């Protein structure tokens, strides 16, 4: 392929020839014609020799497996084999995603002898969850004067599945540390009712069952007063996270993306809920993705979620009406629904109230401002966005609150705290019963 510089130089040479011929100055004509032929021969020889050899380079890109964890470096190997019977030098680079930090020999210049094989290694450190493409390897070579370039995309592509970082989801902490972390705060798990554990005593009222009368306490204060034993029963609440996975959640920039940050906080909250012996499930929804993980009182849904989100990325649009409608058919009325979305879609919020009906739901509006690009050079952009964004998000919250839903604005720093406090609020107020 001729480069822009090649086209320009050929045009300039042709113009030179015509002008020199019009002037009729013999020596300038010779000069112009030779110049044109030197340049065009350079491209022609390149096309006939070096350019044809590039496609005969065999490149194999490989790794131990195609799974990775966020922030964990993963090593890849590229093997080059020159299948030409003449030496060949070329540049190469690996196509990658902007969510990968690359190190090592992922790009460079190689000069290979005939049938020589060379192996290069590079390291990829993902900084966002999801499935991303790595490769193919692009090999390109230029002519001596850099007027033409030949590029070939050799090798296969690798679909790298990036799971959340262990450091972010707290799953790999030791039991003692995790107990300390998870059991801070209120963990009220029981309520008065029919059970086996004694809770307290209260004065007898007509209608109480005789079998609960505390006979040993008769006449303890007034002489003929009668008390009944108040028992307590286990209180279990299932939480289902309805997570918007449409394009509206694909905001943010390098290393700080909305869906990535929210997912880490959802997983952390899920572990906390799980420690409280409550059930947790998920519904990841968009027009392109529909993944329902039913609530269970084990760690299985959380592990499944981690697998699922390492294989997808937000795409399509989100419909609250469709998602709630779907959930209504799958879950019990007592299940608490945590709806997490950036609410970037034009759906009438009033209709949500009617669809949810007697189901329990809390809303979390993700604030895009938390994910705007940082750095000194973007200060004006951030300052402009701050007020506008804040008023939009506040308005969304007010609309949802006016419909009677507990609603929080969450960002990259406070999502976990607000999710956990909402869960505890639901427990304390027996909402999910």
């Amino acid at each position, binding site marked *: 392929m001729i480069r822009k510089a090649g086209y320009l130089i050929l045009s300039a040479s042709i113009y030179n020839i015509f002008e020199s011929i019009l002037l009729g100055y013999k020596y300038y004509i010779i000069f112009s014609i030779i*110049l044109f*032929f030197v340049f065009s021969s350079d491209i022609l020889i390149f*096309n006939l020799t*070096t350019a044809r050899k590039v496609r005969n380079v065999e490149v194999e890109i490989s790794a131990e497996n195609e799974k990775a964890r966020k922030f964990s470096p993963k090593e890849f190997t590229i093997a080059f084999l020159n299948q030409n019977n003449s030496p060949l030098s070329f540049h190469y680079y690996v196509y990658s995603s902007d969510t990968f930090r690359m190190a090592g020999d992922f790009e460079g210049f190689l000069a290979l002898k005939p049938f020589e094989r060379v192996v290069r290694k590079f390291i990829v450190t993902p900084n966002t969850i999801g499935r991303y493409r790595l490769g193919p390897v692009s090999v390109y070579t230029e002519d001596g004067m850099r007027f033409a370039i030949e590029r070939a995309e050799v090798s296969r592509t690798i679909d790298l599945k990036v799971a959340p970082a262990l450091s972010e989801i707290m799953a790999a902490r030791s039991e003692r540390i995790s107990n300390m972390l998870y059991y801070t705060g209120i963990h009220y798990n029981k309520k008065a009712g029919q059970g086996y554990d004694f809770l307290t005593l209260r004065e007898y009222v007509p209608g109480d069952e005789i079998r609960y009368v505390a006979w040993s306490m008769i006449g303890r204060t007034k002489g003929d007063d009668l008390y009944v034993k108040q028992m307590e029963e286990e209180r279990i609440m299932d939480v289902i996270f309805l997570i918007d996975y449409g394009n509206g959640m694909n905001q943010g920039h390098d290393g700080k993306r909305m869906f990535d940050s929210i997912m880490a906080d959802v997983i952390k909250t899920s572990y906390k809920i799980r420690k409280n012996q409550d059930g947790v499930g998920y519904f990841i929804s968009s027009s392109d993705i529909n993944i329902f993980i039913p609530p269970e009182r084990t760690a299985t849904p959380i592990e499944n979620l981690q697998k699922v989100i390492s294989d997808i990325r937000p795409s399509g649009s989100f419909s609250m009406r469709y998602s709630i409608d779907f959930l209504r058919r799958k879950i019990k009325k007592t299940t608490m629904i945590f709806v997490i979305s950036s609410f970037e879609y034009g759906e009438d919020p009033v209709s949500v109230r009617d669809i949810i009906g007697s189901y329990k739901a809390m809303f979390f509006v993700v604030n895009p401002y938390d994910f705007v690009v940082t750095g000194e050079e973007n200060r004006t952009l951030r300052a402009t966005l701050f007020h506008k964004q804040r008023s939009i998000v506040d308005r969304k919250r007010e609309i949802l609150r006016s419909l009677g839903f507990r609603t929080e604005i969450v960002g990259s720093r406070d999502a976990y705290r607000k999710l956990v406090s909402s869960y505890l609020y639901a427990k304390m107020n027996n909402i999910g019963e």
Partner: protein
Amino acid sequence: MGNANMDSITGIVINTGVMLPPIFMAIYVLPRIYSYADPFILFLFAFLPIIRRFIGRMYRSLVYPVALLIAVSSVIIWLAASTGSIPHRYLILGTPIDKPFMVSVTLVIGIVTLLEGLFAKKLYSVITLMAFSTLTFLDMIAALIVFNQTGYPFFTLYIYVELMEYEALYTLIVYGYEFSLPLATFSIPINTYLIAGFVVSMISIIVASYRNGNRSIDRSNSFAYSILYGSILGTAAFYFITVMSRLSLQFLAIAIVIVAMIYAIIRTDPERKADTET
């Protein structure tokens, strides 16, 4: 920093080599034509390529527009003063559109392209600017030769030479041969210098291409072959065109040579082949 400076000095030296033919022509033409030019326009533009290099990057792109604005304002002042729209005393600030003005404009094009070519970073810019500068100065040399022989006003002769070129272009396209070639008709006094200049220019262009290109072993081989084959093909093409001009088929010959080469380049492009296969 040191390396960058060294690089840019080497670049300017090589560019000087490339621009040698227009430099020789400028040395010959300028002292002889200077007196027929408008000094205001000449000095306003002639040093701009050098001034541009010494002022901040932010204002660099404003240099030519500002100079053009000054020139246009001066012309407008002259128009207004001579038509009586503004007091006559302002005429001193005006620049009349007359023969010296036109000579200055032509000289300015030659000088500015020459100086810009000396400082240009990209090889194709240097060659394009060299072509523009060479052609402008060659026109002037032709006009100067006629001027020396006939003694008619210089600018009239410049227009005459230009008209000869247009006539040649017309006959070339309509009849297939040139009727009147300015520099074929008159002999150039600095011919020897110009031939040497073209040789040095060619060598400098090759050096510049080598410097610009990739210097790995296989690339250097193809580079050497391209110069060898280019020179052989170029010389053959020149003789082919010369022979064809005797049959009045020069235009056809040039067109065939250029189109054949461009066709060969396109035809041999492996990417095109890969596209057709898929």
